[in-house]
């Protein structure tokens, strides 16, 4: 038995000129693309079989597998070509007007091309980055062409007494109006659909939240309560609770990197590592602030509190128009800021130094009841100076 050479499968590539038929066919037959294209064009000119073959293959040959969310990339500006063709054909009408045909040659053809341009520009182009920008213009121009053609021919039909053409003119005008009106209406309906879907998701989410609330969160609270603060079980339960709570009550997903989210993430991480309970309170638009320096200094302060104090730690972040402030308070034995032991050298460099480099300031206030690290960053710095 001789081995049959395996041909590449007949599929259309995802990055195509028009439909990907020629490229796919060339790959399958292992012939140059140019040869396939010339054959198709030649067959089209000699009786139209090429065009039929092309359309038939376009319809039935599957597209290459790829990421579902990535639409095929088309290089040919199909809508623009259709529009230009429609204009060119429409320009023939004055010359074919006098010919003895029922309808002047070019009028129907132009109308079909312009309609195709509108459909293509509305239905397919917006999904393609290469053509999305020009699509609305193409659509409007094609609609104007339809309207113009209909209105221009209409007086002539009345004078010459050609009722069929008069009907065609009415159809042209209607098509033109439809080209203007239908796409925006459809687009509106589509966006409303998206809105409804978002709303439904939101509702489902709050339903889930309500359910989990009564069961899982309660259980986690009971576990923490019974296990006693500081125990391993309580720590894990609390970290889980916080994670679940963040997910349930976050509403829309905040973009990662804002200060409020970062503080919560830091708290969650530290609660897993240390026997500490961290409460994060934010006031004002803290979730609109991005400041790497502030977040890093707060992380350092929190890590210090978790490591050396433990127990209950409160983080308070407040954004006012002038400044952003973060306070980290613990209940550990206070320490003398002037006589910082080696292990706590981190404070001076990573908190105080970092804040002053960022244009803010940091104060470490130690009392017998605990330590409070106060961070303050003027607002202008956070908006312009913070790395994005």
């Amino acid at each position, binding site marked *: 038995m001789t081995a049959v050479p395996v041909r590449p499968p007949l599929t259309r590539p995802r990055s195509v000129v028009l439909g990907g038929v020629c490229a796919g066919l060339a790959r399958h037959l292992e012939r140059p693309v140019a040869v396939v294209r010339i054959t198709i064009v030649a067959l089209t000119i000699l009786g139209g079989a090429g065009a039929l073959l092309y359309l038939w293959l376009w319809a039935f040959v599957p597209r290459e597998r790829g990421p579902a969310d990535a639409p095929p990339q088309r290089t040919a500006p199909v809508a623009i070509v259709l529009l230009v063709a429609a204009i060119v054909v429409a320009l023939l009408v004055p010359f074919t007007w006098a010919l003895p045909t029922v309808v002047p040659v070019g009028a129907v053809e132009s109308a079909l091309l312009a309609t195709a341009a509108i459909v293509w520009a509305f239905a397919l182009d917006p999904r393609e980055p290469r053509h999305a920008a020009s699509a609305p213009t193409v659509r409007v121009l094609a609609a104007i062409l339809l309207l113009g053609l209909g209105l221009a021919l209409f007086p002539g039909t009345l004078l010459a007494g050609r009722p069929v053409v008069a009907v065609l003119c009415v159809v042209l005008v209607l098509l033109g109006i439809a080209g203007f009106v239908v796409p925006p209406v459809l687009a509106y309906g589509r966006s409303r659909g998206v809105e409804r879907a978002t709303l439904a998701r939101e509702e489902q989410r709050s339903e889930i939240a309500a359910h989990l*609330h*009564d069961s899982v*969160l*309660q259980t*986690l*609270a*009971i576990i*923490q*309560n*019974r296990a006693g*603060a500081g125990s391993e079980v309580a720590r894990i339960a*609390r970290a889980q*609770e916080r994670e679940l*709570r963040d997910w349930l*009550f976050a509403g829309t997903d905040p973009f990662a990197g804002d200060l409020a989210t970062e503080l919560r993430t830091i708290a969650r991480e530290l609660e897993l590592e240390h026997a500490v*309970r961290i*409460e994060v*309170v*934010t*006031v*004002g*638009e803290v979730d609109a602030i991005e400041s790497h320096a502030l977040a890093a200094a707060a992380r350092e302060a929190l890590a210090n509190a978790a490591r050396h104090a433990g127990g*209950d*730690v*409160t983080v*308070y972040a*407040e*954004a*006012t*128009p002038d400044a952003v402030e973060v*306070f980290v*308070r613990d209940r550990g034995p206070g320490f003398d800021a002037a006589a910082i032991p080696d292990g706590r050298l981190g404070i001076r460099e990573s908190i105080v130094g970092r804040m002053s480099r960022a244009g803010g300031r940091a104060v470490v206030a130690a009392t017998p*009841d605990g330590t*409070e690290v106060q961070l303050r960053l003027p607002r202008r710095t956070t908006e312009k100076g913070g790395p994005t």
Partner: protein
Amino acid sequence: MIRVLIVDDHSIFRAGVRAGIQHAVEVVGEAGNVDAAVRAIDELRPDVVLLDVHLPGGAGGGGAEVLRRSTALLGEVRMLALSVSDSAEDVVGVIRAGARGYITKASSGEEVVAAIRTVAAGDAVFSPRLAGFVLDAFGTTAGTPAVAVADDELDRLSAREQEVMRLIARGYAYKEVAAHLYISIKTVETHVSAVLRKLQLSSRHELTAWALERRLL
């Protein structure tokens, strides 16, 4: 001894709380749903009710419904809301319905006892989170002068009240707030109670908008 009623639908949780506070207060009863809670409050007339925010039964209104149906007794029975969640909806909802304070269910027995004592004495219990909500709700960070000229103005916090709220949000105990501001603890408690009253009574436009945004009303 302070007489306490524990209202929560989880019997294990009630038992846990009871065990944690029994040494300091007298637990006179327990209730597991809205109707039982309203009945128990009416019959037992406890000094303080530990009230779960998410309570089943009744018309489905949870702890806030218990508060509304016991409005007539709120003068002698103080309600302390207990919640597993710290979402704004739950916290501000029960406070506006008449609770005198709010603590999370993760609080230790000692913390619960301290909160019960504060509430029983007629003062309000503000957790850092609740203080944060108040500051947010009264728009103290929006840049507009939200400071009240007169202390009895319902729609705004006075400068002092704002300072107190900010310190509580920063995790300061009442005692520490007092030391920090060079005022007495009693004065701090007065300020906190005043804020509680404003939170309950204010129809301030921003507060309403803020509540609507969070689907509180």
